[in-house]
């Protein structure tokens, strides 16, 4: 990973600005104290610990961020956001990087995790709450492993852990609005 600041700042500036606009955070506020990384619960599995994600964004190195395992793996425990001395919601920044990676169709190395997340969000968006049967089927088909965990199906059906009929919620429009607002006003 060569860092060539002069070219990348210009290239990545638009994406960084978009992340800042949607998340409402200023990446330039970070002074690299590293406290986010000190308590990051997931950094053992990350390629870039959170403070380096912030630094890469400051330098406009968007490709590194959007393709990182961190963007895919961060599970939003929000410890970094809680402890940031500059009041930056670091997890929120990473979350929006993750969403922009999705929009640009960047798959990254953690394909299964990305697939699950997208399937989960699509499912919730559609039904207003999780419909497990559809989620599992969708994932199995999309990951080309149709028979994965199939032996468990009779058992969970008998125990009524999942339902064949999708759940109904009262105000599905509200769910759509939440999604719209989180996406920074874009209908996507």
């Amino acid at each position, binding site marked *: 990973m060569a860092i060539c600041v002069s070219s990348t700042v210009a290239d990545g500036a638009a994406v960084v600005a978009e992340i800042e606009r949607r998340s409402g955070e200023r990446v330039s506020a970070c002074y690299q*104290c590293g406290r986010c990384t000190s308590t990051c619960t997931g950094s053992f599995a990350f390629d870039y610990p959170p403070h380096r994600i912030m630094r890469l964004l400051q330098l406009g190195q968007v490709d590194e961020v959007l393709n990182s395992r961190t963007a895919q793996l961060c599970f939003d425990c929000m410890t970094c956001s809680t402890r940031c001395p500059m009041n930056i919601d670091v997890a929120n920044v990473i979350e929006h990087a993750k969403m922009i990676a999705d929009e640009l169709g960047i798959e990254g190395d953690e394909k299964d995790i990305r697939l699950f997340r997208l399937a989960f969000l699509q499912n919730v968006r559609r039904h207003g709450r999780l419909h497990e049967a559809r989620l599992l089927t969708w994932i199995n088909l999309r990951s080309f492993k149709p028979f994965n965990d199939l032996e468990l199906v009779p058992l969970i059906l008998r125990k009524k852990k999942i339902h064949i009929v999708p759940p109904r919620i009262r105000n599905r429009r509200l769910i759509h609005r939440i999604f719209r607002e989180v996406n920074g006003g874009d209908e996507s």
Partner: protein
Amino acid sequence: MRIGVFVCQCGTNIAGTVATDKVAEAALSMRDVLHAETLQYTCSDPGQRAIIDAVQKKGLTRVVIAACSPRMHETTFRRTIGQAGMNAYMMEMVNIREHCSWIHSDIDIATDKAIDLVQKGVARVRRQVPLYSTTVPVTRRVLVIGGGVAGIQAALDIADSGLPVTLVERGPTIGGNMARLDKTFPTLDCSSCILTPRMVEAKQHENIRLMVNAEIEQVRGYIGNFEVDVRKKATCVIEDKCTGCMICQEKCPGKAPDEFNAGVGQSKAISIPFPQAVPMVAALRKEYCRQFINGKCGVCKKVCPADAVDYEQVDEITTEMFGAVVVATGYELYDWREAYPDYGGGQYPDVVTSLQYERMLSASGPTAGHVQRPSDGAEPKQVVFVSCVGSRDESVGRPLCCSVGCMYIAKQAILTKEHIPDSQSYVFYIDIRATGKGYEEFTRRAQKEFGAIYLRGRVGKIYPSNGQLVVMGTDTLSGGPVEIEADLVVLATGFSAARGAGELARKLNISYDQYEFLSESHPKLRPVETTTGGIFLAGACQAPKDIPDSVAQASAAAAKVIGLLSRGEIETSPMVAAVDQLRCIGCFKCRDVCPYNAIEALELRDGRQVAKVIDTLCQGCGVCNVACPPSVVSLKGYTDNQLIAETMELLR
């Protein structure tokens, strides 16, 4: 009325955008103007001589100078026309540089504007009356508030010049925070060895009167003549009788927290803070004393060989006059406990503050210089230092840098190695700020010679595990999280203003910032003055500072005080508010809004109450003019007449 107008070219600064000769020509047609000329540099010697010549030859009675901002040269030109034999205030400066030539590019427009501005200046100066400044005698005595190193330095410097000084200290001894330090950076000399001679000198100095256990109750008056009430708190010990034998402290059964030792170890209800205290006099804290809690004990009174204990003592308030005040109230450590639950919030005994660690290192401290873990008394082998606790942290509302943390951590890391040779120190830092003389070399020494390992990152969390503390941190230089099992964690806590600094500032009528650090008058050019004349700042009460800076500022404040009082009397600005007493309705709205307490009530012979301005106190801010319902308060040199005339000219 004979008015002269002088238009300055200021090289090309003005002449580049304003046709100055046209301005002078236009000025000649203005009412009462009988002389107008342009000058290349009006502030230069030839320029000033031209003004004097014109005044004397043509018998001018008023002068308008169209040049730069009055902030630059108003005093220059006042002196000039004073030399020409006029009243120095019969002059008006019109700003055609900052307000005109510098901000415009079109010559015609700029010239028209300059003419308008000159017209306005002429209108104003026509209504000017001669003003005379007065002088007031000063009280040649000085009050120094706070007996830390800055207060001591200021008191000694002032006293050496022959002025009597009263040094008021809130605590039972002078010496302040410096007396609690073990060593000082970057020289590693013993703090009390260099401070105690100064403390003793302050006590022995013929011109210094020490008042310990005393606080400022109220301040009245103004520059040169402050009337100050000082409350001497009852300590139940007669100061003149106490010999400092410490027998009372030995025998006292009442346990009390040890404030001098930052809570490490315990003290007694009657005690002397430390063996080199000045004055060496015991003080009793009633809140911990059995005599006052239970009504029976009286041990100290019985054992005192000097018969110095007096339970009946009450607070005494004395009132004295001072010509100048030096405020040196210093700092205290930021109370980190509530803001940092992630560091244990004070629940883990082995997480200590830097000042507590300082007392543990000190030979005169409660552990006699043996570093011990507070939990079990064992000698720590792994010591972790955490920088910037309560500094550079917006999430707890303290974005400021404490300015000394980096240095005292390096010092304490070095001392740790000296005390425990087989120990290892780790320092978590964000940036190393070592800008003083010899400071950078000192922090390098801590790493190179004393093996302290510096890790670049802020600590996220500290938690106990198997009798040790696990410090979760980061080293951003190697790229990731690190965990260290520590025996002792030292937090480099930031500075807060001393408790009650804001309250004192309100009594003194000086300004302070959101952290209650007292504000200087100008950050660059008036760093020791306050916004109130005659009150000066020294040391960490203004902003976090190390010892050399505090001492330097104290000497600077002393120089200002000596300069002020050496003249014996003070010339006051004549541009102050004045009340038309015939028309004053006595509502005293002016007195309510005056930020300088410069308005008092005056009873006329017919018994009517009217407002009166104390000229020496008034700073000419003009708030009273606005507040006065019948508009009878006006500012000399800025009367309603003058301002309206100016405005009318511009609106014409």
